[in-house]
């Protein structure tokens, strides 16, 4: 009787053991499979109400990446997915081609780092006609666009002008030949961009109003073509080949800033020329730390991205949006660069 009971218990135990082993392994395997399924690419999906595209000629610059990031984050909160149009295509398309694609792909909104060309204006107008709201960012285009998100170019010019005055005041009078200070302002594009003209005006006005010293400051501008691959870099290299170099170079975009900085290092002109740059990329910040670049003006790129998405949402929801949305600007020089470098390190760690 006893042995029978023991046998029955042992049988039940062994069967239970088998079942437990099987079920345990099943659960373990399923969880492992689920984990790998989560890691599978192209499987996860989150649906959004709206599809916005960001169109820029410089997809890979950290400036625009930062803007895109800001826009994407804001979009995620507000139910819109922002796509950096053309980023995953194998061909590089120009702005107008991307505009064409965006219009024909019937997206819900376009964020455009516009240029002033007529073709782009026409495309903006076509998009608006098709019912696709367009927000220009950083650079405006006189068209039927719904809104412009960017910095006031005149104010930006004034900031640059102040920096020029500071540089000249800091240096002793003898350091400029003949008491002349040459300021070269590197402009984008082949057209006389309205924004850039405003910046230029701002600079010149500020210098005239604020500088009371004996040095005569002369401003010149040079157009660096951004069109065509590597055009800007080549143009800037050409600058350094010229016999008379300016005393101060003002760059109005990130690419130019980096190129000028690199050129200065390569041609061994560090200390001879003061650079006032634009944007706060890692290399620019490091250059400020090493005092190769005097200072840089930057805007809150994430905020800019956020404002773009907000503007589009506002227009679609309300039917109207304010024509100009200003974005905050900052000045970074050797005094406060440590803060920004710290931020960078933190971001990298994240």
């Amino acid at each position: 009787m006893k042995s029978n009971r023991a046998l029955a218990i042992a049988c039940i135990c062994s069967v239970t053991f088998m079942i437990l082993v099987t079920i345990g392994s099943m659960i373990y395997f399923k969880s492992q499979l689920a984990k790998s399924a989560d890691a599978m690419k192209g499987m996860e999906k989150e649906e959004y109400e709206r599809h916005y595209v960001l169109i820029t000629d410089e997809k890979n610059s950290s400036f625009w990446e930062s803007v895109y990031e800001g826009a994407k984050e804001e979009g995620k909160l507000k139910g819109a997915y922002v796509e950096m149009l053309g980023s995953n295509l194998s061909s590089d398309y120009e702005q107008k081609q991307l505009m064409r694609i965006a219009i024909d792909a019937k997206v819900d909104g376009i964020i455009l780092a516009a240029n002033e060309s007529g073709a782009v204006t026409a495309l903006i107008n076509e998009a608006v006609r098709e019912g696709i709201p367009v927000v220009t960012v950083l650079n405006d285009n006189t068209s039927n666009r719904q809104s412009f998100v960017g910095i006031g170019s005149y104010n930006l010019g004034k900031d640059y002008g102040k920096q020029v005055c500071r540089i000249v005041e800091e240096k002793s009078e003898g350091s400029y030949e003949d008491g002349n200070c040459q300021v070269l302002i590197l402009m984008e594009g082949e057209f006389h961009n309205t924004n850039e003209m405003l910046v230029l005006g701002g600079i010149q006005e500020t210098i005239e109003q604020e500088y009371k010293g004996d040095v005569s400051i002369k401003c010149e501008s040079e157009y660096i073509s951004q069109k065509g691959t590597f055009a800007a870099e080549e143009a800037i290299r050409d600058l350094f080949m010229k016999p008379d170099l300016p005393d101060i170079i003002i760059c109005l975009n990130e690419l130019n800033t980096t190129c000028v900085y690199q050129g200065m290092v390569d041609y061994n002109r560090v200390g001879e020329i003061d650079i006032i740059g634009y944007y706060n990329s890692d290399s620019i910040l490091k250059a400020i730390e090493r005092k190769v670049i005097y200072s840089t003006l930057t805007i809150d790129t994430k905020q800019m991205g956020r404002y773009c998405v907000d503007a589009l949402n506002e227009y679609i929801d309300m039917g109207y949006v304010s024509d100009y949305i200003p974005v905050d600007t900052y000045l970074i020089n050797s005094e406060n660069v440590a803060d920004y470098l710290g931020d960078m390190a933190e971001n990298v760690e994240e």
Partner: protein
Amino acid sequence: MWKNKFRKMTLQAKLVMVFIVTSAILFIVNMFMFYNVNTIVSKLDQIYSSNLDLNQLEETLKGVQDNMTDYLNTKSTDAIKEYYGNEKELQTMIQELNSKATNNEVALMEKNIKNLTESYLKLTSQTIEAKRGRNVEKYKMYYDEATELYTYICEYVYSLNREQFKNNSENYAMLSFSLNYLEMISTFILFMVAIANVILVIMVTKSITNPLKKLAAVANQVENGNFDVELLQVDTMDEVGIVSNAFNKMIASIRSYINRIKENMKRERAMKEKELLMETHLKDAKLKYLQAQINPHFLFNTLNAGAQLAMMEGADRTYEYVQNVAELFRYNVKKNNDTVTLEEEIKLVDIYIYILNVRFSGEIHFEKRLDQSLLHAMVPSMVLQPIVENCVNYGIRNISWQGLITLSVYELDERICISIKDNGIGMTQERIEKVMKGQLKQEDLSQDSNGIGLDNVIARLRLFCGREDVLEMISEGENKGTEVILYLPAVEKEF
């Protein structure tokens, strides 16, 4: 309930059940493995089907573009027919593409492709319309736009294909890793289940063989004659249980048979004992009776008194007779169960013959031929008298001629021979043998003997001499007398 059922199961059913249970578990485990493998394989299939779909879409798109160009070039009906076929196909194809805004790049590209293709198809149909309406400028413009769009779509399809292929390669690696993983887990499960199964089978077979072993052990004990073994405990109702039960019954019945035989034997022995006891008691009673009749001292004293009386009265013959009778009793009182000299024994025979001759008026003649040198030999008492008594009672009592008893003592072959010979009726050989073997029945013996039979004499002589041939009876036939010869050891026995 289940346990009872298990107990009642036959061995076959038990074995079959164990086999089925273990097989079922293995089967389930295998099914689970196959299910998982299938899931993974179908996922692998899914991965590459998306690439295939895209390639088809590209083909059809190319067809539409080519047909449109062909139509614009030739305006042929074949081209327009094919165009419509491809257009329709393309329409259905793009219906399957994702149309929602998502954060998934691939899905988003699908959405763009879908919308671009829709716009493209709208443009191509406008182109065809314009061509039909011979609006040369318009259809050229539409054609250029459509072609531009066509290149964008191709670019998109190509990029999407590349993107998917990149993802799929990673996914494939992941899934193939999962497959390897599954293999490992499957091996582990099968291994564990196999071990558990083996244990299960061992336990069940043990439950079958253990009772058999017990049965064999008990059977061995029984074989060695131990019937008091403990009965087997029968828990199961299978074949072994049935055999064990039968064995138990067998042992029980063997035990009861043995008990019955033992009882019978006991009863028989008791009865025999009783019979013997009866005989002994009877003999005892007879002896006591005889003893009571003859108190030798009393008789001797009385007879002595009688002898003195006869002497005083001058009756010499009476005196002598009574004196001899008294002497006989005195000998009995004195010498019973003792060794005496041969002379004393012969004297007793003399007294006995004298008394008999007084009783029977001198009918018995008694002769002695004695070797005087042998008379001091020691012999058991009361040996010769019973033989002489036998001679008188059976030999010469009822004969018509003069009875003669001859007693001779002589030495032969270093042994003392005592011969007592009568001339009476003699004995047959059978009777002699019967007497020698002591087989004569009680009834055959005479009533008035002094109780000491011939077999008693033989037994005592054998004990005295330590050998068997102590007495010989010789008779030549009827009426030719009988001779009894005693053989005693020649060595003198002294106290």
